[in-house]
């Protein structure tokens, strides 16, 4: 019997991407989240579940930061990466698709490097190809990018002042109210809960579409009924029976 896999499909700019549903912890409505700070800083801190998560704006990372057609549909997908939850800001969530493993192919090794680590596999779906995102690969790229940006800014600052300015931390985490903290201190919070709390921004809980506290099989079971508000007609997908049942009233 052929193995099946559940994939979450979502939109980032002009691209439709997918992700293994088992790596998804929660999905929240986050209208307008990709604008303003995200364009400048690429990520910030928010409280989404019972803990802080680092947010990565996929629109900015994939170079589509100005292409968000409708910020009202923006979603925050919380996934597991680096043994910690991270949030991926996407333009729209399209829904869940259950496919056989034969519809998924590994990306050609000719791509190498970050392209391959970020998109290791491809879904063949109704004559289209959908790149499947590996969250860890995307986080690695975002972190490298941030380091490069910080280094450039530091060098520019140094050149402008004519003196060595203090090197800004490569992994600065920036909250929505522009408060800056270092990544080290941010992550230290997970190990030392008695440390000072970071500024937090609560997302409206009413926007929560799907939430699973632990990344276990429960996610797989609860997902179709909760997440699937799929706009099947928008993406040309044939709604499967379980999808319709999950459409929000």
């Amino acid at each position: 019997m052929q193995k099946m896999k559940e994939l979450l499909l979502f939109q980032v700019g002009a691209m439709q991407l997918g992700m293994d549903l088992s790596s998804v912890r929660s999905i929240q409505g986050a209208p307008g989240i990709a604008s303003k700070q995200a364009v400048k800083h690429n990520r910030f801190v928010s409280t989404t579940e019972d803990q802080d998560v680092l947010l990565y704006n996929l629109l900015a990372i994939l170079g589509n930061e100005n292409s968000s057609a409708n910020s009202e549909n923006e979603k925050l997908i919380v996934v597991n990466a680096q043994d910690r939850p991270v949030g991926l800001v996407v333009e729209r969530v399209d829904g869940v698709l259950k496919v056989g493993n034969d519809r998924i192919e590994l990306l050609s090794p000719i791509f190498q490097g970050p392209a391959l680590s970020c998109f290791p596999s491809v879904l063949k779906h109704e004559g289209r190809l959908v790149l499947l995102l590996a969250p860890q690969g995307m986080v690695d790229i975002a972190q490298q990018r941030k380091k490069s940006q910080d280094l450039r800014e530091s060098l520019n600052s140094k050149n402008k002042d004519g003196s060595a300015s203090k090197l800004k931390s490569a992994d600065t985490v920036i909250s929505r109210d522009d408060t800056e903290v270092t990544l080290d201190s941010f992550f230290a919070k997970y190990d030392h809960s008695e440390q000072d709390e970071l500024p937090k921004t609560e997302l409206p809980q009413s926007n929560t579409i799907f939430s699973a506290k632990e990344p276990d099989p429960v996610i797989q079971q609860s997902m179709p009924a909760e997440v699937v508000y799929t706009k099947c007609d928008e993406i040309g997908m044939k709604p499967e029976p379980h999808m319709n049942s999950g459409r929000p009233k």
Partner: protein
Amino acid sequence: MQKISHTTASIQKVLTFAVKTPKVEDRQVYFLFSIRQMEDILMETVVTPVPFSQPYLKGIAQWHDTVVPVISLEECLGLEYSNNRKDTRLIVARVPTKYADQLSYYRIMLQVVPPIRILALPIDCDPVPHEWIPARHLVRGVYEWENKFLVVAHMEKILDGAIGDSREKPTASY
């Protein structure tokens, strides 16, 4: 480097198409492939770009239920790329590979602009130096033919990742 007519006696036909680069020494440049390397020519195929890939990798496309990478051979060889035509075609080329002593084929798609010509061998051509090609190690040879240059790319090396090893690596801009 020897004359094509000597080295490819068993090949009956070859296929040529223009290299989308400015003329070299006032001569148009063409790529030359054995027709046995070619599997299909496609007019309209959706190419899905892959973020963070090298510029010569244009994306992926589906061919007969197989996902195939699409490359620009010009950019792969480091040639100046100039194309304002929209009537591009995709040629599906196969490159032999050996896995567990079994011959199999790896496929890639090449973006080309018409016309695509088929020539019967032998053709009267002579090998010429090709210092003007930045990634010379990815070229089997360049031949002079009827006031044109014919470039034979080394597809096995291209697929083996020789590009990343031997050419200047792109700066990490991501």
